[in-house]
């Protein structure tokens, strides 16, 4: 955009001329669509007469640019995925920016363009938004909040609760674990590590859509973000009338991720992902779902990693790569600060 400023000023959040220019020349320009174009206080959207899924998420990752993505891509993918794993088709997003005074215009523009591209590729519309600028030091560069609405078919409302899970169901994940968390960790210069790791940050709804077309027996989905695969599995088992058995030798951990995990003492099953979904699928449909996932770039390394069992009720067990066994607990505390 043509702008007279290299950096964001407090005035860009004042609601006056500068705000107006920022919105029309940056946000509205890149996010453009029929609903946003109305520039009203609320976006008015058609009610399709189905159930709606509604989600919100805030993004404060540090650093804001990292191999494989940036805070903007994360915001779009994170919100889209939260809808998709609920079984919904993502349709509309809101984006709210909190920007630190003095933040570079070029960086903001770069983030906005990524978001616009990602939304376009995903086929979702950014229909409303907001910008605030805060004093230097009151936030770290830029924080983004994003909410999303998706349309949920009544036959899929059970997915979110996992109420139809049965003993014998298979557990599938669409690829390697730990990439996002370690990519962000390596991108911070604190460690002086150069590692060939890229975040897996990606919208998964198209891949999930294919899987749902291939099988009506997908009984549960959850994106394995903060807390990693381990936390999703532990949460799923907790208080339930079934147990979960995971095979460590079926998990894919890329070499760079493994290297940093070894170095820092992290367990990859607790490291964050931003493009991984854990699915519980009826055994007879597992191969259909695998086939559907593998057709997509985001699912080409999909693997069956475990199953629902009748023993160890309420608990998740990991058969370790050396044949030992241990419990998978939820991650408590943090392995890493501000990864999303």
């Amino acid at each position, binding site marked *: 955009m043509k702008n007279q400023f290299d950096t964001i000023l407090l005035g860009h959040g004042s609601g006056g001329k500068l705000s107006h220019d920022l919105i029309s020349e940056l946000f509205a320009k890149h996010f453009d669509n029929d609903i946003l174009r109305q520039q009203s206080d609320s976006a008015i959207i058609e009610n399709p007469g189905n159930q709606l899924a509604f989600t919100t998420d805030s993004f404060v990752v540090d650093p804001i640019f990292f191999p494989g993505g940036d805070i903007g891509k994360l915001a779009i993918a994170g919100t889209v995925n939260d809808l998709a794993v609920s079984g919904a088709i993502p349709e509309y997003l809101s984006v709210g920016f909190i920007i630190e005074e003095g933040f570079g215009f070029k960086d903001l523009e770069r983030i906005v363009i990524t978001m616009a591209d990602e939304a376009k590729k995903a086929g979702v519309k950014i229909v409303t938004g907001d910008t605030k600028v805060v004093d230097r030091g009151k936030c770290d560069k830029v924080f983004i909040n994003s909410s999303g609405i998706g349309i949920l078919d009544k036959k899929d409302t059970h997915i979110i609760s996992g109420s139809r899970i049965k003993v014998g169901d298979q557990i599938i994940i669409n690829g390697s674990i730990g990439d996002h968390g370690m990519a962000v960790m390596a991108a911070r210069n604190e460690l002086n590590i150069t590692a060939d790791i890229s975040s897996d940050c990606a919208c998964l709804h198209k891949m999930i859509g294919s899987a749902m077309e291939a099988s009506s027996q997908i009984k549960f989905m959850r994106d394995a973000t903060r807390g990693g695969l381990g936390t999703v599995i532990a949460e799923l088992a907790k208080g339930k009338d079934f147990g979960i058995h995971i095979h460590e030798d079926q998990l894919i951990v890329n*070499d760079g991720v493994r290297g940093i995990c070894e170095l820092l003492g992290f367990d990859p099953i607790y490291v964050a992902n931003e493009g991984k979904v854990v699915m519980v699928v009826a055994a007879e449909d597992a191969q259909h779902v695998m086939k559907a996932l593998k057709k997509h770039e985001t699912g080409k390394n999909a693997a069956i990693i475990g199953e629902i069992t009748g023993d160890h009720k309420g608990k998740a067990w990991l058969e*370790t790569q*050396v044949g*030992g066994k*241990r419990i998978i607990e939820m991650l*408590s505390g943090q392995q890493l600060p501000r990864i999303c």
Partner: protein
Amino acid sequence: MKYIDEYRDKEIVLMLAEEIKKASTKPIRLMEVCGGHTMSIQKYGIPYLLPKTVELISGPGCPVCVTSRSYIDRAVAYSRLEDVIITTYGDLIRVPGSTSSLDKEKAKGADIRIVYSILDALMIAKENRHKKIVFLGIGFETTAPSSAAGIIKAQMAGISNFYVYSAHKVMPPAMETLIDEGVLIDGYIGPGHVSTITGDGIYMNIPEKFGLGVVISGFEPVDLMQSILMLVKQFENNDPKVEIEYTRAVKPEGNIKAQEMLDEVFEYRDDWWRGLGVLKNSGLKIREKYAMYDAEEQIEVEVEELKEPKGCICGDILRGVNKPKDCKLFGTVCTPSNPVGSCMVSSEGSCAAYYLYNR
């Protein structure tokens, strides 16, 4: 990944499990001294692979866990001084002191920075000449040489605003005290990293004086299974001795250069261990000639009165008398997000390891 995958080979691990089963006829209690071993044993689910005759108990080898509350209290007091920047390894900042902790002080605005090496702390000292940089020197023979190197480097570079607050400790006195106190152990899985520095000589007293075997072990599952097998065989044949399983890293004479550096900067002093009390010649104090880098000598501060938490049995757990599950606070009041005792804080602490992997 080369040099790692070989030591996580399922077939070898299962073969060793079979051999241990065959060799072990009478009950044996082995203590893994090192917190890194505890973590590895739990992470790979090793106990599940052992026959009923072999019991593993965790020892006092997690540096954060054996550190006294009064050490934390003094570090907290330093952090409250206007002109001080605290630099520390990450583990320490959540350890509770009597009424506060370093992360609570950080939230209140104290300048506390997590570093991955003492060299980062030296860099901070260079960049902040008008401040006093206090490095919290914690750990056994493994990390103490790097503190020594940091002090020598500070002297060479003429950095005068850098101080080490030493809680460094040495391992053998604790291993001997445990046996002396009557803790039931039939052998030690000896610390791997400590021994890379010290060599195997420091453990000779244990078979000679106490009749117990020590096998210095690596940290991978094959290492641990192999070490357990070696200890079981020693025990069954009544032939206690010091052996090195971790031969790819540990030489009998150790790392002579690191030993010299340690000796140059530090001298022994009696030191207090959580759970064990004061042990003779078990701590490392900075020598007189480097006193200008000794925080305890150079920075005066008022430290609050020591308060110990009620019900916490970290001491008994560190002595191997009790297991984490025996503690009433374990998993209820005391969790990794709200640790009461230090064993729940460090990822190497036995309570944290049990909480994560074996609850």
